[in-house]
């Protein structure tokens, strides 16, 4: 196996998009002179992902996540820089490359809407040259893992969003891809279904030593699956490292939630009071001072309950984007 599953170096994608003012006059003028502007969807990002690694690829809408995944899957040509997946240049569409990757997009479908999923699985078997015994074994294993035995015989359009996502994932994994690009796989799913899919992805990765690149707006997905995150915004890379390090770097504070015996008085001398609900007060304190402040609170106040927490990952990510916007 290659030492690097995904290597991206100074990757760029620039689109030319038409733009004009509102109104009939501008519309008529644009027939003759079309104005366009450059949109740098991906602007010089670089990173590497090792085989078997699972990485969260985060960013707000329009950050360039899907564009990057499409370039890595060969669906978009790069404007500059280089992308290699399993040693292949994706845009070349080499068979060996295409047979070893899979892209799952939460808002797209690869299965034919009007056919039962089983028929589309058969097409994948033919296209991906999966020997029938292997195909049947893995298909049945995946169907069992996701508990969709009764769904695969129905036309896909009759399935709920969550059910459809499950059968889509089975379709994407039948050829045992070594690299899996998951673009918002849990979008629109209820909490239970999200959890089931997360468990499934973790299990698949472990069983098949697959490399996974995951984008999701649900931080629970990222926290449950990824030790490492790559954060991009406006096409630029903002952070690449451990999820825990991201929190330390960007949000060097913790929250202390306390409930006091005699009701909450003025606690501003301990830290920033960020929330107050009856006897429950939440303080924000610098990470380095958490132990000292906690000890002071226990010594000086009649504490009924005390809870120290890292900032929620949603807040951390929001801070990353906010910091980039200020810069």
């Amino acid at each position, binding site marked *: 196996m290659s030492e690097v599953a995904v290597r991206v170096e100074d990757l760029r994608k620039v689109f030319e998009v038409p733009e004009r003012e509102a109104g009939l006059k501008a519309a008529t003028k644009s027939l003759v002179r079309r104005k366009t502007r450059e949109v740098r969807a991906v602007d010089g990002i670089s990173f590497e992902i090792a085989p078997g690694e699972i990485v969260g690829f985060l960013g707000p809408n329009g950050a360039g996540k899907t*564009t990057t995944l499409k370039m890595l899957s060969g669906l978009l040509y790069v404007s500059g820089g280089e992308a290699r997946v399993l040693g292949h240049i994706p845009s070349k569409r080499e068979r060996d490359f295409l047979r070893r990757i899979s892209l799952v997009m939460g808002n797209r479908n*690869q299965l*034919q809407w009007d*056919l039962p999923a089983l*028929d589309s699985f058969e097409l994948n078997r*033919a*296209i991906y040259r999966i020997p029938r015994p292997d195909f049947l074994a893995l298909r049945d294993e995946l169907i069992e893992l996701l508990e969709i035995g009764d769904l695969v015989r129905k036309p896909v359009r009759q399935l709920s969003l969550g059910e459809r996502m499950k059968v889509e994932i089975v379709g994407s994994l039948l050829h045992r891809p070594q690299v899996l690009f998951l673009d918002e796989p849990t979008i629109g799913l209820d909490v239970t279904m999200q959890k089931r899919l997360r468990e499934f992805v973790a299990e698949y990765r472990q069983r098949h030593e697959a490399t996974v690149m995951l984008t999701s707006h649900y931080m629970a997905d990222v926290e449950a699956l990824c030790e490492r995150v790559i954060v991009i915004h406006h096409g630029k890379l903002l952070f690449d490292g451990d999820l825990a390090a991201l929190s330390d770097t960007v949000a060097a504070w913790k929250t202390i939630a306390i409930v006091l015996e005699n009701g909450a008085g003025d606690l501003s001398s301990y830290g920033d009071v960020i929330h107050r609900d009856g006897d429950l007060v939440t303080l924000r304190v610098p990470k380095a001072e958490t132990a000292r402040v906690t000890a002071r609170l226990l010594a000086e106040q009649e504490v009924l309950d005390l809870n120290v927490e890292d900032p929620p990952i949603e807040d951390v990510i929001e801070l990353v984007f906010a910091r980039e916007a200020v810069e």
Partner: protein
Amino acid sequence: MRALVSTMRAELIGAGGVVERNAYLTKRYIWWDVAWFLWTVANTLTIVFIAKGIEATGGDLDVNRTMTTLLIGAVVWAYLGILFEFLMETVAWERWEGTIEYTFMAPLSRAMHLAGQGVFAIAYGLLRATFLFVVCAFLFFDLSMPDAQFYPAFVVLVVSSVSFIGIGMMMSVLPLISPEKGTQLGFVAQGTLLVVSGVYYPVEVLPQWMQWIATISPATYALDGIREAILEGQGMTAMWDEIGPLLIIGVVSIPLGLWVFGRGEQYAKKHGKLKRSG
């Protein structure tokens, strides 16, 4: 050598998968297809009735022969429509279904992908065309074709399909370049073939410059061959005058179609047009 055979085998299996998928989809909507077939029958009858109309208004013509001539034109036109529709759907339909990205990411060469579409279109189109001809000629009008040689006519239609598929490949690139209007633009090419190929009238009535275009249209040779076989009773030997040009056009149009499609795919991947509608 073994690797080449293995690759070819894999490609053919993949193309077979595309044929199979189209068969499933057609089966899924078979009753809608029957309804649409009725529309095709109605459309064909409208054209064939023109011969009777001319006679009724005092025109001097061999009604049976003119009706057969028009029927052949309408059937070939309907057949061409099916082929082009399937090829155009390679992109347009998949874009609508939302499967386009996955199809273009599949490890199947574009040639085999399009061949899979084409083979199914030919099989399905031939079945429909045959049925359409039988229903209109014998069940509805009871046309007399004492000298008809159906086998050579069928062979000409099959051979012409290769050229039609090549042109269809070129047209199917239009929805790839323009997701919004590309499909409609495909009808322009189809309409051009209709005008110049003598579908309902002899090519000789056209202005000279249109007759020149007619010489490179496979539909011209397909119609000539089929009419010669059915109306004049010409056998296979006489068909080579049509089969020869059809093969030459096919040899040129298939690689050209693949090249054009490849260029369109490159354009779409460069400009981000390879995505679903909406």
